């Protein structure tokens, strides 16, 4: 075993690096509150880690997300956006704005997950499963809120073509990387 301490050291370091993103971070700033009930489970700002995400059962039909939210400040002339974090970028998936002269500071509603599936630009089976970080902001005359939550689209990665391609790509490139570790023949 000692003869192979170097490869074991490198493998351990690489695996340790891979687990770092699973650690907790962020949540809600600015005093805003909100929650959503999906399939009988209530989620809130605490669902901001990979180990404790908001779970969306995409394979079930008829699932309704009952949401509510409130801001603690004057909410006139508000605007905001919600995006998916992809590396250093935020891809905007929703935005809102309004004068809100009556200064409404809370809202609630129901969102049908089937509508999300219907609005998605690809078929339901092609919707990539897995973990997503959502990032949002809400600004108004009275203040600003920011929020980060984790959302898990439930399902096996092997149930979508992207998942199958990912597993196959990992295996092929992993084996190719291993192949580069062999010493070449000297002429």
């Amino acid at each position, binding site marked *: 075993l000692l003869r192979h301490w170097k490869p074991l050291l490198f493998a351990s370091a*690489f695996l340790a690096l891979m687990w770092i*993103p699973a650690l907790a971070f962020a949540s809600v700033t600015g005093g805003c509150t909100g929650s959503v009930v999906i399939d009988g489970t209530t989620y809130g700002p605490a669902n901001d880690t990979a180990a404790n995400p908001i779970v969306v059962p995409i394979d079930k039909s008829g699932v309704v997300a009952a949401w509510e939210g409130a801001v603690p400040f004057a909410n006139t002339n508000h605007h905001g956006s919600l995006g998916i974090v992809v590396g250093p970028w935020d891809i905007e998936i929703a935005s809102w704005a309004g004068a809100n002269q009556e200064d409404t500071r809370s809202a609630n509603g129901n969102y049908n997950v089937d509508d999300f599936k219907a609005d998605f630009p690809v078929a339901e089976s092609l919707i990539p499963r897995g973990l997503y970080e959502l990032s949002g902001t809400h600004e108004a005359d009275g203040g600003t809120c920011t929020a980060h939550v984790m959302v898990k689209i439930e399902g096996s990665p092997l149930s979508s073509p992207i998942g199958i391609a*990912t597993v196959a790509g*990992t295996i092929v*490139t992993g084996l190719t*990387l291993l192949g580069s*570790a062999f*010493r070449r023949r000297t002429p």
Partner: protein
Amino acid sequence: VLGIISGLLFGFFVALLLQQLAIAPLTTFTLIGLPIAGVVLGIVLSAWAPLGRR
């Protein structure tokens, strides 16, 4: 060259796999950091070649 390219792609696919398995989202660390770590690993493995002659 094989080590660099395969390390880069391996890091990218590992980042996608972690996202698909709901272990980690596609953050800067996973999407950028893991491919860089893969390139470093590829360079080290190629230069060191610990597995003997093919």
